[in-house]
C-alpha cells in the first residue's frame, strides 16, 4: 500500500519519486499546467501548476510527493493567479486565435477557456516577431511562443539535435533556431521529430495541413482541457504512457 497526501481534501496515493503533479494526474485529479508534459523532466517555469503545500506556494510539477502533505489547488486564490498568468501570456505575444491554425488544439487557449478568462485586461505589447518560413515543410510563427521550452527539451533530449534554444533575458527572452543562419532550413529538423509534436501553442506548424479539422472536431471543442489532460496522463493502474497530446491533430 502506497503513502498518500491530501489534495483539496482528497487522499492521493503516490509512488516514491513521483511529483505532486504526476501523482495527482495518475489518480485522476487535474492541476492546470502548460510547460509540464508527462514525457519530459519538469521545467517549473510557467507557474500555472502552482499549488499551496502546507500553506506555501510552489510548482506542483517539481514538488516531490510526500506522505501527509496538505495540498490546495482548486481554490479561488490560486485560480485567480492562474487567470492572471494566462492573461499576461496572451498580452505578451501576438495571439490572434481566429487566424491561428492551432486554434481548438491549443493548450494556452484551452486553459483560458477552462479558467473562464474572458479578456486579458492588460495593455497588449504587440511585439514584432517575424516568422521563419524558410523550411520547405515546417513553419515557425514566433508570435505565439510562450517560452515553455518543450521544443527545446524534445529536440535535445529525444531527437538529439538541439534545433531550438531560448536566448535573451526577461522580456527580451525569445526562441531561437540553432543554425549558422538562424533559419530552420539550415537545421536537420525532420517532420518525424519529437520537437514537431510538443508545441502547446501554434509556433511549430507542419505546412499545408492547416485548418484541416472542422470546428467542432478539434481537440478541445468537445471536452475541456481539465478532462482531456487526465486522459493523456499515465494512469496509476495501467501501463501508462500513451500521450494523446502528442498525436498529430491532422
Amino acid at each position, binding site marked *: 500500500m502506497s503513502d498518500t497526501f491530501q489534495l483539496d481534501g482528497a487522499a492521493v496515493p503516490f509512488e516514491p519519486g513521483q511529483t505532486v503533479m504526476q501523482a495527482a494526474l495518475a489518480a485522476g485529479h487535474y492541476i492546470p499546467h502548460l510547460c509540464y508534459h508527462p514525457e519530459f523532466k519538469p521545467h517549473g517555469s510557467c507557474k500555472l501548476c502552482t499549488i499551496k503545500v502546507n500553506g506555501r506556494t510552489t510548482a506542483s510539477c517539481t514538488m516531490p510527493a510526500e506522505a501527509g502533505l496538505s495540498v490546495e489547488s482548486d481554490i479561488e486564490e490560486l485560480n485567480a493567479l492562474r487567470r492572471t498568468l494566462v492573461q499576461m501570456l*496572451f498580452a505578451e505575444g*501576438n*495571439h*490572434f*486565435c*481566429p*487566424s*491561428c491554425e492551432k*486554434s*481548438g488544439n491549443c493548450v494556452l*487557449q484551452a486553459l*483560458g*477557456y*477552462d479558467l*473562464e478568462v*474572458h*479578456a*486579458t*485586461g492588460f*495593455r*497588449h505589447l*504587440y*511585439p*514584432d*516577431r517575424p516568422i521563419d518560413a524558410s523550411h520547405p515543410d515546417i513553419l515557425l510563427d514566433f508570435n505565439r511562443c510562450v517560452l515553455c521550452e518543450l521544443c527545446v527539451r524534445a529536440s535535445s533530449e529525444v531527437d538529439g539535435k538541439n534545433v531550438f534554444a531560448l536566448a535573451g533575458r526577461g522580456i527580451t527572452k525569445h526562441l531561437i533556431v540553432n543554425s549558422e543562419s538562424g533559419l530552420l532550413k539550415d537545421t536537420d529538423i525532420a517532420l518525424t521529430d519529437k520537437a514537431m509534436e510538443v508545441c502547446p501553442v501554434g509556433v511549430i506548424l507542419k505546412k499545408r495541413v492547416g485548418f484541416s479539422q472542422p*470546428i467542432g472536431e478539434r481537440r478541445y471543442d468537445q*471536452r*475541456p482541457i481539465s478532462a482531456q489532460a487526465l486522459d493523456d496522463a499515465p494512469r496509476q493502474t495501467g501501463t501508462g504512457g500513451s500521450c494523446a497530446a502528442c498525436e498529430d491533430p491532422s
Partner: protein
Amino acid sequence: MSKKLRVATTSLAGCFGCHMSFLDIDERLLTLLDLVEFDRSPINDIKHCGPCDIGIIEGGVCNAENVHVLHEFRKNCKILIAIGACAINGGLPAQRNHLDLGSCLTEVYLTEPGLAHGHIPNDPELPLPLDKVHPLHEVVKIDYFIPGCPPSGDAIWKFLTDLIAGKTPELGHGLIKYD
C-alpha cells in the same frame, strides 16, 4: 411591468460579424425585446447614444472617430460590454500594430502594383487613423467581455440573459471561445 432596459450597440474597427451573430439569437430577439429597447444601434440607425443601461461594442479602436464614439458610449452607458476578438485584443486590424503606419499607407496606396498615380486618402471627412489599433479596455473602462470571433448567438444570449437577470454572466465550456 417594470421599465425596459435601454441598450445601445455599435461597431468600431470591426466587421459587423458580432452584430450578425447577435441576430443569430433568432426568435429569442422577440423575447429580448420584451425586456429591452434599443437606443443607438445599426438595428435602428439612431445616430447618437442617449443615457442607456447597457452598451455593447464590437471592434477595436483604430481611428479618431472610434475614440469619440467609444467615449460617447462610456459617458452614456451604465454597463459597457466589449464583444468579440477585435474589441478585446484588437483582432485582425491590430495585426498591423508591429508595423509603422506610414509604411503601411505607403505600401497600400502608393507602391503596391496597380496603384500607379494613387495617393494616400486625405479627405477631411475621413477620420484619421491611429498609429496603433487598441482594444477597448485600453481607452475606457470596460465592465464585461464576451470573447469569440464572433461569439455564437447562444453565447450572446446566455451572457445577456444572465446580466439582465442580475447574475454574474458565465459562459462555460462550449460557449467561451476565442475563435
